[in-house]
């Protein structure tokens, strides 16, 4: 099994850290993982993205031209990556960030209203974990217990008290994702 994933959005939306948590979760499952960020100045305000690969076999290229799953959190990211989802692949987007809808019909499209849910939870920082929850509902590539282990590994100890909140956000994300 191999999952080739792109996560893209504005800098500050937690794109890179969501990718990191996913990569750590894969590590906890004993998978091969790679996490390749865009590290340019575009992280300040423009689009930030990260390619995450989880695989049972060694990973060749960390740079890809097509993805099994694209998670797009703003309009520029949708425009950049919609065409790069493999036929039959999956596109997940946040309803708040996208104003003109995805057009492709040969892929499965899902919507998570994560921004709305984060606002409702009065915790905007939960945004990326709501998205992650949605992803794991559609493609359970890593077990929730391993995600929590991954969170523990990737967060500094002083932030470990936030793990229950993150768990709640992941579960909420699983509930609110809907097929388009």
């Amino acid at each position, binding site marked *: 099994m191999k999952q080739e994933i792109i996560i893209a959005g504005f800098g500050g939306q937690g794109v890179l850290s969501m990718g*990191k948590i996913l*990569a*750590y979760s894969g*590590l906890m499952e004993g998978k*091969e*993982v*790679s*996490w*390749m*960020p865009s*590290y*340019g*100045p575009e992280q300040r305000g423009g689009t930030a993205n990260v390619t995450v690969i989880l695989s049972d076999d060694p*990973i*060749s*290229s*960390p*740079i*890809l*031209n*097509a993805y099994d799953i694209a998670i797009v959190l703003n309009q520029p990211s949708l425009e950049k990556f919609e065409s790069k989802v493999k036929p039959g692949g999956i596109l997940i987007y946040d309803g708040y960030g996208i104003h003109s809808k995805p057009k492709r019909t040969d892929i499965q499209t899902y919507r998570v209203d994560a921004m709305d849910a984060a606002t409702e939870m009065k915790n905007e920082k939960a945004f990326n974990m709501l998205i992650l929850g949605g992803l794991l509902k559609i493609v359970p590539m890593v077990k929730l217990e391993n995600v929590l282990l991954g969170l523990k*590994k990737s967060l500094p100890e002083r932030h470990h008290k936030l793990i229950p909140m993150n768990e709640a956000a992941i579960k909420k994300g699983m509930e609110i994702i809907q097929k388009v």
Partner: protein
Amino acid sequence: MSEEIKLLKGNEAISHAAIRYGADGYFGYPITPQSEILETLMAEMPWETTGMVVLQAESEVAAINMVYGGAGTGKRIMTSSSSPGISLKLEGISYIAGAELPCLIVNIMRGGPGLGTIQPSQADYFQTVKGGGHGDYRLITLAPSSVQEMADFVGLGFDLAFKYSNPAIILADGIIGQMMEKVILPPYRPRKTEEEIEKESPWAARGKTKGRNRNVVTSLELDPAAMEENNIRFQAKYKLIEENEVRYEEFLCEDAEYLLVAFGSSARICQKTVELAREEGIKLGLLRPITLWPFPSKVLNTYADKTKGMLSVELNAGQMVEDVRLATNGKVKVEHFGRLGGIVFTPDEILAAFKQSVMNQ
């Protein structure tokens, strides 16, 4: 315990590996995309555990001269930078090579020329393997293509540097530096004791002791006859390195009718290209030079007899391709494909370029 698997950026892996290898000192100056090397070393505070010195110098020029001084005392000393910073260090690197000192240099390349961009590039190939600084010198050049190799080549680089009393360099780029992968870090080993240094590096300038002459570390020799002797000695050493230290990796080369030749991050991307080609029934293989100097010329020459064409795939305008052509000596068609200035090619883009320029499709 030392077998613990970690998820690290390539840059972070270098720092952890250096501490664990028992490095004595790091002198550097921050520059993207390699600043995590200095940052990780600072965060780990090895001066409180192993006693390793970590210092942010006031400039790249200061840092490389601190390396010169430290290496002159027989200690395991390293520095790191990215392309424009390495250009600044070149005078010092030439001096270190001329004084025959062991040290480890890391270049996490970015797009140039000039200040260029912070995105990945492999355009410092010529600078690294063909000189860069002045004079007839060589750098033992290791090109890691995974985070694991970033960690492993710290120890290998130091070992080779001390074996031949010559600077070694890890030549990687922003992709390998910034990406995170699984890595098993080497076990901790102690730093060399003063007695070990005295025994293994009797040339070191570490204070004159009774019973031996003063040690002088310098690259200066104003008598041309003596300077020629020095150069002849360097060349003999380089020849020995060329005979003994060539390293490369073959990926699906056995039955290959065509070959991609690529190093570092490009080799990783090319692996996927080979997989894509094989799915289409094209017998494509990949030869990855691990040492860029000494270059794996002999094995490439052997493949020149067995294959119909080669493509040198590099994130530059065509640098290593010259060495591939020298190695194959006109026996086989050798073309180049590259992207420039920080743009990275994708696996399918390489396959298309290969079909067009090598297979004439």
